[in-house]
C-alpha cells in the first residue's frame, strides 16, 4: 500500500512465517519496494561514476540533475494523485506548454513589469488549474473516458499555445522573476527546493488527510466509495485540478530554467510522468499509490538521461533504456501484486 503503512508500529502484524520470510517478504513490503528503487538509483550512480568519473560525481552536475528532475517531478507528484484515484492524464505536457506561453505573453509580462513578477506565477497557476478543472469536469460530469478526454485536451491545449505564441519562443525579461528563481537557499537551487516542498506536501496530503484517503477509496473501488458517502465526481474534479495546478507550477519552473515560454515546452511530459509514477509502484488501475516511489522514479529517469548524455549516447539509446526499465518495473510490480493479492 502507501508508505504510511510501513510506518505503522509492527507489533500488531503477525510476522510472516516459513518460506515467505526474508528477502521476498522485504520486497513485498512498501519499504522494501522503495529499497529496490534506491538500489536501482545507486547502481545508476555507480554506472555514472565508472563511465564518466568526475564529470558525473561533480556537485554542479548533481545539482543539474536535480534541477532537471524538479520540473517533471512536480508534474509527476500531481500525476500520482490522479493515477491513484483511478484516472490518467495525457494532457500534462500540453498544459505546461499553454501555461508557459500564457504567462510569458507581452501583455502578461507588461503587467508583471508594472506591478510584480508574481503576476506571471499566478497566470500560469490559473491557466494550469483551469485546464485541470475542464479535464476533471469532462471526465466526472461529462462521463468521457479519461484517456479520451485528456487526449482531446492535449491536442487543444497545445494548439492554443501555438496560436497564442504564434509559434515563437517568448523570452522573459521581467527582472525580479529570473533573480528569484535563479537563487539558491543554503546552496540548493530554488527549483529543487520547490520540488522538495511539493513532494513533502504531496506525501502529507496523500497519507495523512481525508483528501488522500478518499483518493485511495475512489481509485480502489469507485462504486463502494460512492455508497460509502464520498462524492466521487467532485473528488475526481479536484484530483485533475490539483494536477493542473502542478502543471502550472511546473510551467513557472520551466520558464525560470529556460528563461522562455514556448508552445514546444513539456514535450512528452505525459509519458515521462506516467512512467515515473508507475515504476515508483503506483498501480495504474488505481487504489494504490506512493509519493516516495514517484520521487525515486523521477530521479532514476533523470539520472539515466544524465549518464547517457555525459557518455555522448544518443537520445534514442536513452529511450530504449527507459523502455526497458519500465518493462522490468512493471513485471516486478505484477509479481509483488500477485503475492499480496490472490
Amino acid at each position: 500500500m502507501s508508505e504510511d503503512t510501513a510506518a505503522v508500529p509492527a507489533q500488531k502484524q503477525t510476522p510472516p512465517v516459513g518460506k515467505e520470510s526474508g528477502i521476498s517478504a522485504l520486497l513485498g513490503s512498501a519499504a522494501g519496494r522503495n529499497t529496490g528503487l534506491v538500489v536501482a538509483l545507486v547502481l545508476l550512480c555507480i554506472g555514472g561514476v565508472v563511465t564518466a568519473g568526475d564529470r558525473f560525481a561533480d556537485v554542479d552536475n548533481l545539482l543539474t540533475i536535480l534541477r532537471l528532475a524538479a520540473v517533471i517531478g512536480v508534474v509527476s507528484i500531481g500525476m500520482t494523485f490522479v493515477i491513484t484515484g483511478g484516472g490518467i492524464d495525457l494532457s500534462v505536457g500540453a498544459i505546461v506548454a499553454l501555461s508557459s506561453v500564457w504567462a510569458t505573453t507581452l501583455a502578461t509580462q507588461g503587467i508583471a513589469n508594472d506591478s510584480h513578477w508574481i503576476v506571471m506565477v499566478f497566470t500560469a497557476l490559473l491557466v494550469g488549474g483551469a485546464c485541470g478543472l475542464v479535464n476533471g469536469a469532462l471526465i466526472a460530469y461529462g462521463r468521457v473516458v479519461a484517456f479520451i478526454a485528456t487526449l482531446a485536451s492535449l491536442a487543444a491545449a497545445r494548439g492554443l499555445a501555438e496560436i497564442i505564441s504564434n509559434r515563437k519562443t517568448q523570452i522573459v525579461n521581467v527582472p525580479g522573476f529570473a533573480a528569484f528563481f535563479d537563487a539558491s537557499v543554503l546552496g540548493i537551487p530554488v527549483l529543487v527546493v520547490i520540488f522538495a516542498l511539493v513532494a513533502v506536501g504531496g506525501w502529507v496530503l496523500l497519507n495523512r488527510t481525508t483528501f488522500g484517503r478518499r483518493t485511495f477509496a475512489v481509485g480502489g473501488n469507485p462504486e463502494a466509495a460512492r455508497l460509502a458517502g464520498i462524492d466521487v465526481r467532485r473528488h475526481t474534479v479536484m484530483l485533475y485540478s490539483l494536477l493542473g495546478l502542478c502543471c502550472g507550477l511546473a510551467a513557472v519552473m520551466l520558464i525560470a530554467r529556460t528563461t522562455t515560454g514556448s508552445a514546444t515546452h513539456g514535450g512528452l511530459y505525459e509519458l515521462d510522468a506516467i512512467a515515473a509514477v508507475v515504476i515508483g509502484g503506483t498501480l495504474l488501475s488505481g487504489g494504490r499509490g506512493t509519493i516516495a516511489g514517484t520521487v525515486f522514479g523521477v530521479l532514476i529517469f533523470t539520472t539515466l538521461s544524465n549518464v547517457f548524455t555525459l557518455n555522448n549516447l544518443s537520445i534514442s539509446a536513452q529511450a530504449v533504456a527507459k523502455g526497458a526499465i519500465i518493462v522490468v518495473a512493471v513485471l516486478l510490480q505484477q509479481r509483488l501484486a500477485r503475492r499480496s493479492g490472490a
Partner: protein
Amino acid sequence: MTSSPARANALLSVQGLVKRFPGVTALGGVDFDVRAGEVHCLLGQNGAGKSTLIKVLSGAHRPDEGEIRWRGEVVEFGNPTAAMRSGVAAIYQELDLVAGLSVADNVFLGHELSTAGFSRRAEARRRTRALLDRLGHRDISPDRDVGRLSVAHQQVVSMARALSLDGQLLIMDEPSAVLDPDEVRVLFGVIRELTAQGVAVIYISHRLAEIREIGDRVTVLKDGRTVATGLPAREVKTSELISLMTGRVLDNVYPQRAPVDPAAPEVLVVRGLADGDRFAGVDLTVRAGEVVGLAGLVGSGRSEILETVYGARKAAEGTVEVDGRRLRRGSVGAAVRAGMGLCPEERKSQGLLLDQAVYRNITVSSMSSFAKFGFLDDRAERARSTKLTEALDVRPAGVDRVVRGLSGGNQQKVVLARWLLRECRVLLLDEPTRGVDVGARSEIYELVRQLADSGVAVVVVSSDVEEVLGLADRVLVVREGRVVHDGPADEIDESRVLDLVMEGQPA
C-alpha cells in the same frame, strides 16, 4: 495400499492437509473422506478454512503438506483444469465468472465444445439452455452478458457450469447464500438427482437447517483443523455442532426486544416511492428505536428500494424524509448528510476496498469524525476499528491486514463494522449476515438491537425469513416491487410470510 477399508472405499480422501498464507496458517491438518453418492457437509466458523480446503481440492491452491487420494490413488492437482479432468467440479464462494462473456460462454469456459478447433456455439447454447432448465431457470438466456445478471442468477450460472463438467465430485461453497428458499429447494432436487447417480457432493453452508435436510455426513473444521468428521447429519445435535465449531455454548441467537414506544418520533418516512421500473407505491415509516424487516424473494425489488431511499438510484416518484426533512432525489450526499447509511448487498463490488487495510475500510464513511482540519488521526481510527472488529470477532485479528486476505464472512463483518461505527439516524442493511457464521450472527443481531435501542431507525433486508422475524419489530413483505404486507413481527409466522412471498408464483 490403504490401511482402513473405509478409506479404500472413499472416492476422495484427505490426510494431514496443510496450507499456509503469509502470516496465517489457513489449514493446519485436515483429514476427511468423501464417499460416492453422499452429500458431505463442511461446517466451521468464518475463517475456519472451508473455502481454502475446497480450493486445494479443486486445484486452485497447492497444499504445503498432506496427501489427497482420488479413488485410492495419491494425486496432485496442479491447477483447476487437472482437477476438472479427473472429475472434480467446484463452485467457489466468490463467483468466478467473466463479465462481458455470455452465459453459454461462461458455462463452457475452459472446456469449450469444438470440432477441429472451431467452437460449436449452437451446441453450447443448447446444452446451456438444458442445464439452466434443470436448475429451474427458464428466465436466464444463454446469450445474456453474465455481468448484467443479478448475483442470484450468476450463482445459478456457476452451478450450471459445474454441472456441465459431468464430474464425480461436485463441491459447492455456500451456494445458498444468495438464493431464496424456492431456489434452494430446486438446488436440493438437483443434488438428490446427482447423488442417486453416484456423484458425491461437498456442501458448505452456515445454515444448519439446510445441512440437516440435504446432508449425509458432517465434518467440522475449527481454526484450520478437523475437530470432528463423519458425524451423521440428521442425528447430531445442533448444540453439539455449535460447540464443536465455536468451542462455546450459544442458547439464544436473537436478542430480546422491548416493545417500540408508539410515541417515538418517525425518523424515516417514505411515501409513494417508485423508480419507474422495478417497484412502485412503496410506503415505509420507521420510528426511532424500531427495526423494520423487508422480506421477499431475491429480485423482488427490496435492494432497489433501499438503494433508492439512499439516493444511489434516482426515484421517479415519491418522497423520502428523514426527521421531517425531505431529501433531494438521487443524491447520496444528501442522504448521508441527513444521517443515513446503507450497508450494500454485494460486499465485493459495492462495499469493500479490497486492497486496503481493514481499519481504512471501516472508517471510510466516518472520516470526518477522525479528522482535524482535514488531517486524519490514524491512531484513533485504529483504536475504534480494533474495538469493533473484536466485538464482531473478525479473524484473524489485526486492523492493518488487507481485506482481500480475509474469508468471506469476515469481509462481511468489516463492511458491517463501517456502518456500526458511523453514528447514523437511519441505517439500511441489505443482507447484513450473508455468509456469516452462527456465532458471529448473534453478535451482529445484538449490535443492531443496541443501535436501535439507542434511537436509530433500522431497515433490514434479508432472504432469511427466520432472520427477519427474529430481528425485526415490524415486517414488510415485498412481492414484485409492491409491499403486500405490513405488520408487527410477532403477529406473523414463517409459513405465512413464505405464502405471501410466493403468492402468484407458479409452483
